[in-house]
């Protein structure tokens, strides 16, 4: 019996998210008395792979097969299912990322497993298996029971502290026996965001709304982001207006993020915006309107003009 986790990598390196998943799985495994198996697909060095062991993985299955770089959903689902069967996995855990959300539903059908996406904490109970997730775009939390023998979840980023442990993991090459016919995706172009902090990975996020008045006024926010190694985000009208790229749009219809610290400059705090950022640990709001709903969700606030506040923030950070 085991818990299988699917770990994503980025240019051959694991993201913090992968370590969160391993730590999370290790905590459940301890309670169940089972092992943690990590599956990694991609060209990753043994040294990098062994890092998964530092967070509690007992065994690491590595698949180095070029064909998977196309991220073909069916092929990856077949590989994960094959690993789950061989390892007798009773729980399969994915990140609640673009890739995790694409693959988990397919695997759940293959393994006849119940699936809950966007889980935010350790299970409430193991038997029956009950997990928590946000529903109604963050406006409520649901306790959901999975009734099948095999259980699958996708786990939300930044929901579990990484914990290093004394542990030695074994690394094994794994052949998922996929055939060429399983691959039908041909990638013709890939654009990676480089040199910038990925929004979904960022511990600190600097976000601007319509109150910034124009895309030309983003210099101060960019400077703040640079100084704090923060990601940049914006409200929907800002990306709709073309002031900022669509990838920066957060909210119900954009990206959902959960950084430690979220700065909202000139953002009113509409319910659809909050849906994407309300899991942030600390929210700072700057808005000239004292009645702006953002202040109901913020921890620290300034009723004032962004143009006066941003330079003071920059100065304050220099003095830290």
């Amino acid at each position, binding site marked *: 019996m085991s818990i299988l986790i699917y770990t994503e990598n980025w240019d051959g390196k694991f993201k913090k998210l992968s370590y969160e998943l391993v730590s999370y799985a290790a905590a459940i495994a301890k309670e169940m008395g089972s092992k943690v198996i990590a599956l990694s697909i991609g060209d990753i060095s043994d040294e990098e792979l062994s890092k998964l062991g530092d967070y509690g993985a007992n065994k690491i299955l590595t698949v180095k097969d070029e064909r998977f770089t196309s991220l073909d959903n069916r092929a990856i689902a077949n590989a994960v299912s094959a690993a789950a069967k061989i390892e007798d996995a009773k729980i399969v855990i994915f990140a609640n990322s*673009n890739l995790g959300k694409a693959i988990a539903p397919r695997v*759940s059908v293959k393994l006849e497993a*119940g699936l809950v996406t966007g889980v935010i904490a350790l299970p409430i109970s193991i038997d029956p298996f009950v997990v928590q997730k946000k*529903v109604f775009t963050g406006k409520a939390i649901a306790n959901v029971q999975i009734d099948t023998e095999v259980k699958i979840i996708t786990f939300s980023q930044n929901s579990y502290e990484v914990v290093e442990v004394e542990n030695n993991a074994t690394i094994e090459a794994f052949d998922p026996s996929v055939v060429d016919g399983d691959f039908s995706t041909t990638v013709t172009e890939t654009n990676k*965001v480089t040199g910038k902090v990925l929004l979904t990975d960022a511990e600190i996020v600097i976000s601007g709304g319509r109150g910034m008045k124009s895309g030309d006024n983003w210099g101060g926010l960019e400077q703040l982001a640079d100084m704090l190694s923060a990601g940049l985000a914006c409200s929907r009208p800002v990306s709709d207006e073309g002031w900022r790229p669509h990838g920066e749009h957060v909210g119900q219809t954009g990206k959902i993020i959960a950084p430690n610290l979220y700065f909202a400059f000139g953002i009113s705090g509409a319910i659809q915006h909050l849906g994407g950022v309300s899991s942030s640990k600390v929210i700072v709001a700057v808005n000239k309107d004292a009645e702006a709903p953002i202040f*109901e969700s913020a921890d*620290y606030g300034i009723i004032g003009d962004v143009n006066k506040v941003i330079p003071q923030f920059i100065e304050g950070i220099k003095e830290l």
Partner: protein
Amino acid sequence: MKILVLISNVPDTTTKIRFTGDNTSFDDAGVQWIINPWDELALTRAMELKEAGGIEKITVANVGEKATEPTLRKALAVGADDAIRIDAPAKDAFYVASQLAEIAVGYDLILAGIEASDYNGNAVGGMLAEILDYNSVSAVSGINIEGDKFIVNREIDGGSQVLNITGPLVAIVQKGIAKEPRIPAMRGIMMARKKPLNVANPIEANERTQFVNFELPPPKAACKMIDEENAKEIIKLLHEEAKVL
């Protein structure tokens, strides 16, 4: 080529969320229902593809009880040619996908929203693809048709890709797939009344998950306000008090 657009019937995004029966079910009293925002964008893109030529028909489908019909009528008013309602409550993602698999065969392109804004499931599209053994692409932000191939833009974690893939295809779509959702015009609303809305009986299928109960998030502590002139003070508080800087 035929397109099927999956439609989820969800509470308006500004709905105040309440629960009844000892927090075991969503209180739908007085709730306004809408087409799930991503499904609305999917339908809009389907219409654009049809207007560009080569699409025989757009069908919209929903698993739900009679109360969901106004939402399907709205989808017909936006421009779908016909609608199918599978007459059963949407018990869980696998149950819904199993029902949809019964009616989805014969369509070349199936569009599903990346999630439903009520229970935020992200699962029906992928499950449907696996049940039918179709190709699937998720986080799709653009789709075009070239001969018998689909040219798909998809978001990956930290970037985007363009890919070619053959049908039948389940495309799980998100923001970017269409610019603005289409709003039904008067003429569309009139025409929708005459378009077929077929009701199908559900098949036997198991549900695999169940909601035990719901909680509202704990109320947030009051926001600490700082004067504009002392803005720097916040940086200090973030450093010393909140310890996030």
